[in-house]
């Protein structure tokens, strides 16, 4: 028997306004409320609400044998609260079934791990608190932004009391090993590592509607047979993907909802089952130790940091931003700290990415700007304003 573990990432950034050079020093109002609201509503209606409803129904139709897991960022929950509270309620209903697990991550979907462990842990604490407040839930498993991972992430997550951590099952860290087992990260005691099966995950997330792909059209039957093929060669198939896959990245007319609707029954009929990450961790022992020293992520073909840190614009933005940490925190100014943290969201850096090769299409689709340079300019103008506020406080 193979277990299928679905984890969906739910996130929207606080997108920036085109902050003009003439406005530097005016203080505040950095975010494009109108656009953020429009996108929040659109994605909620196309994806979050219909997908939540479908999953709720599937849980009941399968008598609880279908189960899933979410990681919902603080940034998106703030936007639901402001623009579309119904979405939060819908997630609460799901969590209340007891068959939906929630993960912890950095509240602002940030890359803080790369620059400041202090800030990293503070943001995880913020997220923990938020999960408690909104869902009355205490996550047991941690995932870092964009599945950015190395041994250190696992060590910190263990220190913070988590049972498990998620990462990308990238070929270069696995080598001949399979992502379909649980592992033990190097230099940890108890914490376990779950790896994304990127082939099967991306078959749904990226290739589902790709007509030139040999697997097209992807049916629930076909996919279930691929999952079954793992029998004898693994315990668990980890399907990690953006939740927006359903209805947003893959539009409704591609048949993505129909696929999801039929998949649980097909998987169960094949003698396999669904597990949440915590269930996986309590069911399976680590197969081996996995030493991941160099950072991996789930982005692009490189599966490294180049989508956020690949050019000097991105590095400049990050260096400048994290260079302010101590001074910003010393002010104790809540608004200032919050604005600074909202700027840490990885999406701002992703928009500045200039590699337009294999992943160019994906980058363009997700980019709020025409040119990566415009993203850099808007970001740096806001940062200059933030610095002036810091000076004046």
């Amino acid at each position, binding site marked *: 028997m193979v277990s299928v573990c679905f984890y969906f990432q739910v996130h929207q950034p606080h997108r920036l306004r085109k902050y*003009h*050079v*003439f406005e*530097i*020093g*005016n*203080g505040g109002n950095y975010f494009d409320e109108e656009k953020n609201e429009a996108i929040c509503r659109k994605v909620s209606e196309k994806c979050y609400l219909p997908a939540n409803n479908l999953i709720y129904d599937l849980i009941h139709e399968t008598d609880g044998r279908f189960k899933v897991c979410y990681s919902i960022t603080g940034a998106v929950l703030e936007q639901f609260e402001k623009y579309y509270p119904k979405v939060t309620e819908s997630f609460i209903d799901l969590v209340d079934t007891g068959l939906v697990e929630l993960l912890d991550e950095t509240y602002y979907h940030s890359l803080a791990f790369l620059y400041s462990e202090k800030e990293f842990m503070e943001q995880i604490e913020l997220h923990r608190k938020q999960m408690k407040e909104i869902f009355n839930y205490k996550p047991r498993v941690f995932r870092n932004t964009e599945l950015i991972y190395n041994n250190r992430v696992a060590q910190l997550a263990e220190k913070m009391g988590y049972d498990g951590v998620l990462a990308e099952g990238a070929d270069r860290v696995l080598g001949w090993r399979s992502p379909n087992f649980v592992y033990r990260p190097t230099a940890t005691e108890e914490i376990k590592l779950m790896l994304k099966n990127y082939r099967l995950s991306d078959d749904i997330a990226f290739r589902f509607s790709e007509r030139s792909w040999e697997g097209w059209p992807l049916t629930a039957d076909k996919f279930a047979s691929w999952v079954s093929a793992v029998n004898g060669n693994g315990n668990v198939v980890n399907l990690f993907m953006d939740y927006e896959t359903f209805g947003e990245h893959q539009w409704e007319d591609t048949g993505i909802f129909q696929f999801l609707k039929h998949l649980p029954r097909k998987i169960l009929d094949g003698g396999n089952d669904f597990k949440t990450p915590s269930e996986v961790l309590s069911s399976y022992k680590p197969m081996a130790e996995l030493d991941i020293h160099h950072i991996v992520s789930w982005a692009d073909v490189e599966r490294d940091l180049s989508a956020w840190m690949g*050019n*000097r*614009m991105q*590095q*400049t*933005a990050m260096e*400048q931003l994290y260079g302010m940490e101590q001074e910003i925190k010393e002010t104790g100014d809540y608004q200032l700290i919050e604005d600074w943290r909202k700027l840490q969201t990885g999406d701002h850096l992703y928009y500045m990415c*200039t590699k337009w090769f294999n992943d160019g299409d994906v980058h363009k689709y997700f980019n709020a700007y025409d*040119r990566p*340079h*415009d993203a*850099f*300019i808007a970001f*740096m*103008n806001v*940062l*200059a304003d933030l610095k*002036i506020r810091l*000076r004046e406080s």
Partner: protein
Amino acid sequence: MQKTIKILMFGWEFPPFNSGGLGTACYGLTRGLSRNNAEIVFVLPRASGVKNENYMKILNTAALDIDNGSIKFKTIDSILTPYLSSESYINERYNNTKIEVDEKLMYGEDLFSEVMRYSQEAKIIASKEEYDVIHCHDWLTFPAGIEAKKIAKMRGINTPLIAHVHATEFDRTAGNPNQAVYNVERHGMHKADAVIAVSNYTKNMVMNHYGIDGKKIHVIHNSIDYMPSYSSEEFKIKKHHKIVLFVGRMTIQKGPDHFLWIAKKIAEKDDNIRFVMVGSGDMFPFIVEEAANLGIGDKVFFADFMPQKDVERAYRMADVYVMPSLSEPFGITALESMKNGTPVIVSKQSGVSEIIKNCIIVDFWDINRIADNIINVLYDSDTRNKLVGGSMEEIKKFSWNEPARKCIQLYNSLILNKKPLPA
């Protein structure tokens, strides 16, 4: 009373539909001409994206500013814009999704066939107009001017053709001209009865590179219509930082890369100075990335292309304006900056440096010296006050009447001296 002169003028752009100094100059010159008893039919390309009636409405509103309503616009549908290269024309022609397919078919397959098509369209317009002189602004319009002269010839009149050179291919490409563009320029200048150069600097260029007799070249410097600018707008950034300004298209001609190197020098000495770069162009992405590469990404701010009223705000926000052009036929922005009370540092390789006194003139490549001068202007109050006071006083005498009168003089002498057509 002087007789009214009728001018058939071919331009490329006119405010507010302009992306550079050529439109500004045409606007100023036509305004000056209309105040000097001239009637102008101004022919220009109308790019897609703006509906014809709206386009004319906006142009005519702009023209209201021009006395007597003595300017009429005629447009030719075309995707020609002043700062187009062969490559960027192809890109626009084939990749601009805003242009309808059937409309695209109308346009030339490459830049040169479009310029020729444009000149044929211009011929039709010319055949419906009466004119005493033909006045063309820069190379794209030269073939159109030649066609208009042919039309006049068919009527038995040897109408003078004037080629007004605002920039040559040598300026635009920092000395690496496109041969085909050069050929059109050269042919136009030779066919013209007179060439107007916007500076002595440009006159020399036209003599040396295009083989035009100096006697045929008339230097008429650009100008501005001085009006005191009153604004109480405060820029909060000024409480913390001094601002050094760049205004110009981000192309090799304007030296945006030199500006960054200057900024880098200054940033090494003074952490508090900030740099604002206004303008866009083919080098824009490179320049933005280069600022980050140089480690001054937090000190250089990019304002992209802005409408003129915002450019004026940028001058007022700045403490000093630097024009590090590699080759600048004139450089109207220097006058605009002075008008707004902001001192200027201009490249020696420019036309404007021939006619202003209260400015600092430098070699564009002399990064260290420019950096020192900037710091001096920012912090030495004697230097600063002298420059600001002097340039505010000096700029008051500027008006487009002066170049317009020189043009009229030139028209009259050409009309008087025109040779009869051979029988």
